[in-house]
């Protein structure tokens, strides 16, 4: 027996195999407790009801809901929408435009010559609001909150939007609020804006 042990120890093979087996055993013992402590997206033994990451993300993570809530709300309210945005230096930040076209499912962004904070049609925020920034602390990176306005008789849910038949929106800004407004709510002013363009 001694000679067998001695011959085995003359090479690192069996000692390292032993170390590896111990490491595997520790991994197995710790696997489930690690998973139990981990938060949803970090868990291994986890199966979602849907593979739609927008659904998963907005339910599972407050930051995701806050950072991309505007685009998610647009996707809920009016997928395939056309959005009029100011052109040139006045246009919304590149990230917001990217989000509206991807996560928001907007079909196209149409640049027009206007100033998003100066174009001021009469609007009732509370009467037509179909989506707004979800409640909760805003992430540092988010400078503006959002709201989507369209004709509807229903009240909005927190962070979710009501589906609207509207397909055309104009992007406006009020102080630190980004707005997407259903064109039919500002028809007259919008026609004048387009004629001016």
């Amino acid at each position, binding site marked *: 027996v001694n000679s067998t042990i001695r011959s085995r120890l003359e090479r690192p093979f069996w000692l*390292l195999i032993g170390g590896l087996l111990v490491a595997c055993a520790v991994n197995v013992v710790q696997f489930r407790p690690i998973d139990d402590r981990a938060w949803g997206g970090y868990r291994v033994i986890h199966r979602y009801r849907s593979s739609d990451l927008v659904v998963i993300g907005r339910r599972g993570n407050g930051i995701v809901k806050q950072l991309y809530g505007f685009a998610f709300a647009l996707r809920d309210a009016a997928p395939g929408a056309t959005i009029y945005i100011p052109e040139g230096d006045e246009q919304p930040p590149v990230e917001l435009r990217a989000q509206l076209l*991807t996560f928001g499912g907007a079909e196209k962004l149409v640049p027009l010559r206007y100033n998003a904070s100066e174009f001021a049609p009469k609007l009732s925020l509370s009467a037509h609001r179909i989506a707004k920034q979800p409640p909760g602390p805003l992430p540092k990176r988010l400078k503006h909150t959002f709201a989507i306005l369209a004709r509807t008789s229903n009240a909005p849910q927190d962070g979710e939007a009501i589906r609207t038949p509207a397909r055309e929106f104009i992007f406006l800004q009020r102080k630190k609020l980004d707005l997407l407004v259903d064109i039919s709510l500002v028809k007259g002013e919008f026609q004048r804006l387009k004629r001016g363009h």
Partner: protein
Amino acid sequence: VVTEFAYLFIWGLSGLAIARALELRGLIAVPIGFALGIALFVALGVVQIVANVSTSPIWTLTGTLLVGLAVWLWKVHSRPSPKQWLALALSGPALALTVFGLRKLNWIGWHSDTFRYLLAGSVLGINRVDLLSLNLITKRMAVYPLLLAPASDSSELHFASLTPLLAVATLWILGWLLWWASSTRASFSRTERALAVVVVLALLVTNNRFVWHASYLNGHLVFAAYLLLLSGCGWLRVRTQAIQPAACVVIQSASAIVVALDRPEGPLVAALALLPFTFHTKLSRFERHTPMLALGSVLFVWYAWVGWRYIVFGISIPSSCSGIWGLSVLLLAIPYLSQSPRLTFVFKRVLLLTELTLWVGLLGMAVRSPRILLDSLRAVVQNTVQDRASWGSSIWILALLVSISLIATRSPERHLLRFPVTTFVPLSFLLAYFRHEAYRDGDRDSLARMLFHFVPLSALLIGVSLFAEWRLPWRSRVSAPEAQI
């Protein structure tokens, strides 16, 4: 399902053609071919981005298919045997079933960073490179967004089966490398060799974070897989006849490019991983210099494009961009500089000097601003000792096994695998200084996830050490040197 299957099948098929052209024989051509197919797709995608032509993934896929076909017609002269035709015919339905099953599983690892990649991928998918913000370009880079982009063809955000299949390919490649590692010593039986492969693979399969990364939508698994390919295949080429020089050059070049454009720290890690091969005396000039030149060229073009995007956005080019651009020039110059007799002293000790420079650099940074290092060290302790980042004890056990292997055993050419692992220790803390921010506690911390990049490579390093000799002097007297193949 159809879109996902089509992309994966064509990646695999084109990569397989390249693998066969490189004379990779047997079943290993499948996982390496899959990795090469993905690398080809990514390389073409990068060309589309910087050349300002359509980034629609369908064009990238068409290019991938055409290159695969051209390689097959040009290099692979033999017609597939009936057995190979049958395997090819069966692989289609098998892949379709796998894709279908993995999609049904809804098995997704994610956190808020995932959405940054999804955003970048979707922007590329709808062919709007102009909407990539500087944050997305510099932090999310090109590789993973390009791999997410095709999902937009089917109005989705990601391919459910890509990451799990890449994890399987990583294990397969690791197993293959280990099998060859065991062949370097004649005195081991087939049972011992098989046991070594099984136990090392079990080390990964039982690791909670490895399994999680097999579902996690982020660039970490891609990074780890290609780093393993880069160092592992290079080591294999130096130690055995299992791989042809041309195959090694292509695999290393492709892997270095993928690693470099996968994450912000990628260019540094890829360059460090290539360094021991660039100065290896057993390799020909072609083998030593081609991967470094490929990496340098791609970084030169990519960071020139990134610099141009800074100018377009009206922002001055930061040192993080110009610095990597400068590094690319240095990488391109290395093959020429290495011929200079005046620099022989430096190049003979290049690995030692590089590692020393990294430590001295860290020391200098720490003296200037100790807070970042102290906070980062605290975060590392919290994440790995107090288990705030879901690693359990696995990182320390892995570090212990790697240390025992390196200190107590002796194995020829193992430094080729060791160098990227040990240089990452000072580099990881230097990266905290480069980003002007200490690491944090919890799963969200980037270092806690970056550790994963070195797990498969460390497993290979331990696996190679299984077939080593004791370094201890009294052992070397007892055991006679064994026959080397």
